[in-house]
């Protein structure tokens, strides 16, 4: 970890820096030292953990995604200098700080249950069936502290135990499935999978079919969009490409 002047790392960092920061090292005034998997790196201050790691030469294949805090792919655990607390965050949303120790958690090992929501009873027993470990919850709230979305994770696990699908769906709605709750849980619950099962059940049984959906399905079956569809199907690849590139887009 002492060797932060490896020529290879310097070359990688050199190759990356313009892409990651957009400016030359000589123009950067403030530098910090971060420890990535125990190895110290000098990186410009004010970068996110993700860009700081890229500056240091890491190229991500896993453990990165949307870079905007929505996809949950870049889970990170870290400790700050002088602080015993283990902290968590999304690497693309957390600023690298001087003296930080960190590592990426590109994947949370967890079995994902296979089920057919149309064949399950709409009651608490569905959670016990597929994720019986939910009942091991001791309400320590470690999951909530780990959540980078600031969700009340423990509360939705508790909602699952008592079959409150509505409450669970409401509390867990903004979950990005990063898995940090499950990595920290002393009861080894896989909270985000539990929540997904709960939301699927709520979607199937707790919510009626919305009016706008019913209306649109009716329009489709009545052939409202048939002409446009036929036109698309008969297009050549070039025509399709042109239509695609010129389509209406939401502003960036």
């Amino acid at each position, binding site marked *: 970890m002492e060797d932060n002047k490896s020529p290879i790392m310097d070359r990688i960092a050199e190759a990356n820096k313009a892409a990651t920061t957009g400016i030359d090292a000589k123009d950067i005034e403030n530098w910090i030292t971060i420890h990535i998997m125990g190895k110290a790196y000098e990186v410009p201050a004010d970068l996110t953990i993700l860009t700081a790691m890229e500056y240091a030469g890491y190229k991500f294949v896993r453990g990165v995604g949307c870079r905007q805090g929505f996809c949950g792919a870049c889970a990170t655990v870290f400790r700050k200098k002088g602080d015993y607390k283990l902290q968590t965050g999304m690497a693309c949303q957390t600023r690298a700080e001087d003296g930080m120790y960190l590592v990426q958690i590109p994947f949370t090992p967890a079995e994902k249950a296979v089920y057919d929501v149309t064949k399950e009873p709409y009651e608490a027993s569905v959670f016990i069936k597929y994720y019986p470990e939910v009942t091991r919850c*001791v309400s320590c709230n470690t999951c909530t502290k780990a959540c980078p979305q600031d969700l009340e994770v423990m509360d939705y696990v508790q909602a699952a135990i008592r079959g409150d699908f509505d409450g669970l769906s409401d509390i867990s709605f903004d979950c990005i499935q990063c898995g940090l709750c499950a990595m920290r849980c002393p009861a080894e619950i896989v909270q985000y999978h539990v929540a997904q099962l709960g939301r699927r059940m709520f979607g199937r049984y707790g919510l009626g079919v919305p009016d706008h959906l019913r209306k649109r399905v009716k329009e489709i079956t009545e052939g409202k969009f048939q002409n446009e569809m036929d036109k698309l199907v008969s297009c050549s690849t070039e025509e399709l490409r042109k239509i695609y590139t010129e389509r209406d887009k939401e502003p960036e």
Partner: protein
Amino acid sequence: MNSTNTKEIKSTSTSNVKFPYYPGCTLKTTAKNFENSAIATARALGVELLEIPRWNCCGTVFSLAQDDLIHHVASVRNFIRVQEMNDYGLVKNENRLVTLCSMCFNTLKSTNRRMKENTEDLQKINELMYREEDYKGNVEVLHFLELLKSLGYDKIRDKVTKPLKDLNIAPYYGCMILRPKEIAIDDPEDPTIQKHILEALGVSVIDTPYKKVCCGSYQTVKDKYIVAELAYDILTHARKKGAEAMTTVCPLCAFNLDQRQQAVKEKHPDFEEMPVFYITQLMTIAFGMDKEVYGFDQNYVDPRPLLKSKSLIED
């Protein structure tokens, strides 16, 4: 989704005295009939059971290990919610937390006792829950039967519009509200609280020494036949003494005495089924309430034929 009835019940009364109420997970699932009937009877008696916000599972079983503090965190977190209810004015200076489930009662009250007697334990738990306000140790855990007793048996008698005449009932207490004696709600050797309530309803009360014999508790998960044998003894003894049904206040006792009668019949083909009520279900009938709150569809042994034979319900 599953508390619609409760909400309706709550919204109809505002002048009642409000108590923080801890439901517990079972009351929201397999013992929904206990919750609905208890909330309805409490309301009739001028008490509003106000569900504590963001409650969590009590922990189910009180951990007896001296160094096992983590299993008390869940209960203490609920006590903090009671403090918050007072802070936010949901209840007025009311630290008595009412429970229905005997298991929850036992776990909550035992934990509370340990926290009050051992400030070092309390401090450790408060420090672990640094995001919460500290638990100050002021909550009192109350079982619903204690609440009924404090309201007075006469008050219950006054509310009876349909006396439960000719109905022979043996009350069953189980362990969790009687043992250990430090947390007991009644004389652990000879509890009578249900007897007084049932008498106020007009019931002929059958006393049996099996009223405080363990039902087998969570052994029901491991081996249903252990429980079936215990249930057989408890139910047949009550039957021999002339009981037509039993009452309980515990969802686990209810499961073991009621649902497990199926396993009893496997082992004892001559066994005759016997309905097992939550005592609050009988109160709703005696108070002349709407049949919607009886909740008999969740009872395993259907008590309706018995009640119909006594002309206490219509259909």
